[in-house]
């Protein structure tokens, strides 16, 4: 109890701004948001909503289960023993990790500027940040290919080869993954009370110190989902990689490429095995990220 007679707020008090932030930060988690009690009369309505929602949930469960039943374990083993497949697994893991780090690294300053600074042309920049999200992936790959045909692109290629090479795989993944990371970080910064930063500068901080000491530690909560979504997008990226980096075995082959190549030769079993490995790796990363973010799985 405080000396002013104040007690910790009872739970039925209106949530404080930080509670609101926390709820908003926990968006998408079961139980997050504002749960209302259910009356008996509501049940038909809620059941109808449940039926609609369950169509999608059943489909998700269906594709996961179908994969599990279809997979032949010896073929999964081959993904790790065969040097060709193993190369794709390793390249996928390495390129996705680099892409994730790059994406978060770019997303943090970009999202901060977009949420905290007013500048000319901001609406245009905001719209541009959606281009990689709305553009068909193949078109992004084609755009990259054309960009590196231009004189500036050709100049860069004198030092680092991007087209049909591993840096191209990473760049193709990054182009899409980063846009999602930026949007996620923007939501995270928007949830941080700007007054904190203002108090910090009155206490003697420069804007940069306020960013490092006050904003960034709080934005870490948003970096985990940003990294997760960047990693997931990078892992599944196929179109831009196909067009920009090619599908050369033991060179620019990532796991989605393997699935595509195996399907082309009618080897559905092997494609399913690689898909199962992708699914398992994605689930492991998702679990690790959630553990890192909340200290618990669900």
């Amino acid at each position, binding site marked *: 109890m*405080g*000396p*002013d*007679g*104040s*007690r*910790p*707020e009872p739970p039925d008090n209106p949530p*404080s*701004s*930080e*509670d609101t*932030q*926390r709820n908003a930060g926990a968006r998408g988690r079961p139980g997050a948001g504002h749960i209302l009690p259910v009356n008996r009369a509501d049940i038909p309505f809620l059941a109808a909503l449940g039926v609609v929602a369950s169509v999608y949930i059943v489909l998700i469960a269906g594709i996961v289960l179908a994969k599990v039943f279809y997979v032949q374990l010896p073929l999964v083993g081959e993904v790790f023993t065969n040097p060709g497949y193993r190369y794709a697994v390793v390249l996928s893991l390495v390129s996705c990790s680099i892409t994730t780090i790059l994406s978060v690294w770019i997303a943090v300053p970009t999202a901060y500027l977009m949420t905290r600074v007013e500048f000319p042309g901001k609406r245009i920049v905001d719209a541009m940040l959606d281009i990689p999200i709305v553009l068909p992936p193949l078109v992004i790959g084609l755009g990259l290919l054309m960009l590196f045909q231009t004189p500036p692109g050709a100049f860069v290629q004198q030092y680092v080869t991007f087209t049909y090479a591993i840096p191209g795989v990473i760049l193709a993944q990054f182009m899409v993954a980063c846009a999602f990371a930026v949007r996620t970080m923007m939501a995270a910064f928007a949830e941080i*009370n700007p*007054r*904190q930063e*203002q*108090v*910090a*500068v*009155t*206490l*003697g*901080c*420069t804007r940069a*110190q306020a960013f490092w*000491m*006050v904003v960034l*530690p*709080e934005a870490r909560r948003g970096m985990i989902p940003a990294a997760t979504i960047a990693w997931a997008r990078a892992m599944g990226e196929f179109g831009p990689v196909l067009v920009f980096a090619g599908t050369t075995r033991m060179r620019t082959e990532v796991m989605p490429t393997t699935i595509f190549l195996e399907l082309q030769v009618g080897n559905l079993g092997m494609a399913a095995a690689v898909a199962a490995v992708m699914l398992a790796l994605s689930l492991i990363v998702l679990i690790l990220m959630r553990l890192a973010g909340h200290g618990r799985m669900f």
Partner: protein
Amino acid sequence: MIHFDNITIRLDGFALENINLHIPTGAYAVLMGRTGCGKTTILEAACGLRPIESGRIHLMGRDVTDMPPGRRNVGLVPQDGALFTTMTVEQQLGFALRVRHRPKGEIAARARELAEWLGIGHLLHRRPHGLSGGERQRVAIGRALAAHPDILCLDEPLSALDEETHGGMLDLLRHVHEDTGVTVLHITHNRREARALAQSLIIMRGGRFLEGETARGQLAREEDDA
């Protein structure tokens, strides 16, 4: 001393023009006005958080118009406290000294001193989440006072508190002012708060400032109407 000399502030679709204000050193000034009339904008201008179009701002005799907020020696307590969510109470109270690169021992001693004085000594290792409204505001006041500011700016600091806590906080603010001698600019729309605390009362009405006896008369009339 807070002195606004012919200040004009322009915001999107909103302007405060030719503001002249004078608050003497060591006074407890309360600035009242309706929601949206620009009270917070004035406080932000004093702190250096809101650019002004013309005029000069003097704090304690220094022209601070072009100074960054950190060099004006003001402490700010926002409405919701705006506590740093990732820091413990001790870290918040020591923040201003940490920014000034003071020795660790001095920072810890100041944080303890402030906490004991404000009655939050038992909360030093807690983070803001789970603190009561009154406790949060005590932390915010301590954080603002840590580096001995000349001026303490309070932006509706009691508006989110329940009635019981409110009374205790009025006493606390009076003590803070008596013990430190800091010049206070307190913004509120609560007449009771204004009556309890104001040594110098300023009321904003339709872009004009009522001061002294005129302001007190206005406050009394509004209370009769209410």
